[in-house]
C-alpha cells in the first residue's frame, strides 16, 4: 500500500489530511473514524468564553459560503478540562487552534495549552483582529506577525503552526516574518473577507455584515498563495481552502503543501476526508507514486514566478 506519511517539521502524520479549524467537532465522531485522520484540529479556542456574532452567521455563495461565527468559544478552562481529554482518546495527533485579541493573550493561552501532553502542536489563527491595532488582523502586518510568533515561541516547544491570512498584498512577506519569528510550519490560508447583500431586503446576508468565504470557489486563490509561499519560505505548508476531493488535495501538494486541511467540504459530506484519502491513494497507484514526498512542490514547467502583477 502507498505510503501516505508526511511530516510537518517534527510532527509526523500518518497521512496529510486533517480538518480545518471551525468545521469539525466532537459530535462528528459519531459518523467519522477520527483515528484515520492525519491530525485533529478543533475550533479555535479563546482564553475566555465568547458568545460569537449575531445570526445569520452563514450564507451561501456560488461555489462557496461566507461565515461569520465570531469565534464562539467555551473558553480555555472548558477546553483543557473537556475538549483536550476528549480528543486525546484518538490516535491522531491533536493540533490546538488558538485565537486571541492581543499578543499577551496569545502567549498566555499558548503557554497553558503547551503544558498539556495530549496536545501535539499549536496552530495560531492570526486572522483574528488585533484589538491593539484598530482591529486589523495580526496576520495582515509582517511586523506584528513576527512579534506575535516570537512571543509565543518563547513559551512553547511544541511545533508552532501559523495560519496565515490570505487578505494581504504579499503573503510571502508575512510568511517570512512568521519564519523569522520562529514558526515551524504555515497553514495557507484562512478565509477571504467577503460580503453578500440580499437585494430584496437590502440587508447584508450575514449578521456581522462581512465574513470569511470558504469552499471550492476560493481554491484557485489558495493554490496561488501556496505556490507563492513555497517559493520564498523553507517551512512546511499546510494547504487550506476549497478542497473537495483527492485531486484538489494533490493540486495543493503539487503547489507545495505537505499536508492539507479540509473545511467546508465536511459540511457537504461528513466523511469526505476519508474519501479524499482513498482518492489520494488511487492517484498514487495510478501514477506509481510510493511516497507523497515525490509530489510535494513538484509542479512542472513553472518558472519561478513571484505571483505579482496582472496578467489580463
Amino acid at each position, binding site marked *: 500500500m502507498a505510503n501516505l506519511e508526511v511530516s510537518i517539521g517534527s510532527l509526523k502524520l500518518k497521512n496529510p489530511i486533517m480538518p480545518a479549524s*471551525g*468545521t*469539525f*467537532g*466532537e*459530535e*462528528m465522531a*459519531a*459518523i467519522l473514524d477520527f483515528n484515520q485522520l492525519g491530525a485533529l484540529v478543533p*475550533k479555535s479556542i479563546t482564553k475566555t468564553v465568547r*458568545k*460569537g456574532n449575531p*445570526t*445569520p*452567521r*452563514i*450564507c*451561501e455563495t*456560488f*461555489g*462557496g*459560503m461566507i*461565515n461569520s*461565527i465570531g469565534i*464562539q468559544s467555551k473558553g480555555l478552562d472548558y477546553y483543557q478540562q473537556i475538549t483536550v481529554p476528549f480528543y486525546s482518546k484518538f490516535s491522531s495527533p491533536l493540533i490546538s487552534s488558538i485565537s486571541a485579541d492581543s499578543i499577551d493573550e496569545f502567549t498566555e493561552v499558548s503557554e497553558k495549552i503547551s503544558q498539556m501532553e495530549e496536545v501535539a502542536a499549536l496552530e495560531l489563527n492570526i486572522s483574528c483582529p488585533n484589538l491593539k491595532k484598530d482591529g486589523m488582523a495580526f496576520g495582515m502586518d509582517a511586523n506584528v506577525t513576527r512579534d506575535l510568533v516570537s512571543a509565543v515561541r518563547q513559551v512553547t516547544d511544541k511545533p508552532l503552526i501559523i495560519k496565515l491570512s490570505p487578505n494581504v498584498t504579499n503573503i510571502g512577506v508575512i510568511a517570512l516574518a512568521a519564519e523569522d519569528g520562529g514558526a515551524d510550519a504555515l497553514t495557507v490560508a484562512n478565509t477571504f473577507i467577503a460580503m453578500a447583500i440580499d437585494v430584496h431586503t437590502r440587508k447584508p446576508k450575514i449578521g456581522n455584515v462581512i465574513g470569511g468565504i470558504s*469552499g*471550492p470557489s476560493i481554491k484557485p486563490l489558495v493554490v496561488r498563495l501556496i505556490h507563492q509561499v513555497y517559493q520564498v519560505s523553507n517551512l512546511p505548508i499546510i494547504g487550506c481552502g476549497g478542497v*473537495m476531493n483527492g485531486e484538489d488535495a494533490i493540486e495543493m501538494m503539487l503547489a507545495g503543501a505537505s499536508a492539507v486541511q479540509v473545511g*467546508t467540504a*465536511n*459540511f*457537504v*459530506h*461528513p*466523511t469526505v476526508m476519508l474519501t479524499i484519502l482513498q482518492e489520494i491513494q488511487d492517484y498514487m497507484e495510478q501514477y506509481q507514486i510510493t511516497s507523497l514526498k515525490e509530489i510535494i512542490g513538484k509542479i512542472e514547467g513553472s518558472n519561478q514566478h513571484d505571483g505579482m502583477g496582472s496578467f489580463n
Partner: protein
Amino acid sequence: MKETQAEILCNEKLNRRYRHMKVKISDWNVSEVNPGQFFHIKTTEDNLPLLRRPFSIYRINEDNNTLEFLYLVKGVGTKKLEERKPGEILDILGPLGNTFTIHQGGKGMLLVARGVGIATLSALAFAANKADIPCFAVLSARSKEDILVEKELNEVGVKTFLVNDQDGSSDPESVRLIAEEIINHRQVDSIYTCGSKRLSVLSRELSEEYSLFAEIALEEKMGCAMGACYACVCDVREGDEIRTIRLCQDGPVLPLKKVVF
C-alpha cells in the same frame, strides 16, 4: 446519524408551492427516527448549491422503512430538489437534532402550525395517534389552497382547524379564540408550535394562561447540522441567564418558555 443513499419513491407537487417526497431507506431501520428530528439533504449531486438543506421528518413509516418530507419550494436548493425524480438516489444525512417530548398518558395535545411548519408537527401528530393521545391542530396558511396534509391528519384522527390570511381567520386573535375553545372543551394539556413567530407568541401566552406543557421547533441557517460549526445558534433563557445553543444539536425542539423572541 448516518449519511444514507435513499431511493426517491415519489416527489410530487401538493399545490403551487409545496411538495411531498417519500424516500426508501435500505441500510438501517427508520424506527430510530423520532418526531421533531430532521435530515440534512444534498439537493443535487453537483455542488450547486454546495450546502445541504435541513428538512424535518414529516412521517416515519416503520412498516415499509420509508421516510416522508414536506417542503416549500423556495430558493435554489429546493428548486433543485423539486427536479429530482422517483428512482433517483438522494443523499440524506440524519436523523439529526432532538425530538418533541410526548407525555405518555397525556390528556391531549394542540398543534399550532403555520405553513410548512405542519411538516414538523405532523410527525408528532402521527406519534400521538399511536400513543392514543387526542390531537388537535390549527393549520394556518396564506390561502385555503396552501393548507397542507389536512386529509392525512384527519385520517389518523387529528381534528384540524383551518385558518388563512385571505379571510382574516389566521390573525392571532382569531386563532386564540379557536385554541381557547379547544383547550376549554377538549382536555388539552400540551401545546406545540412551528412556523410562525406570531403564533409562537400566542402559544406561549396560552401555555402560561392554561398551564400547558409547551414546545416549539425552530429554524436557523445551518452549515454542518452536526454541532460543529456554530452557525445555527439561538438564544435561550435559563433562569436569569441568556445562553446560546446550537439548534442542530440542542434543538430544533425547545421548551417554548426558554425561547427569546
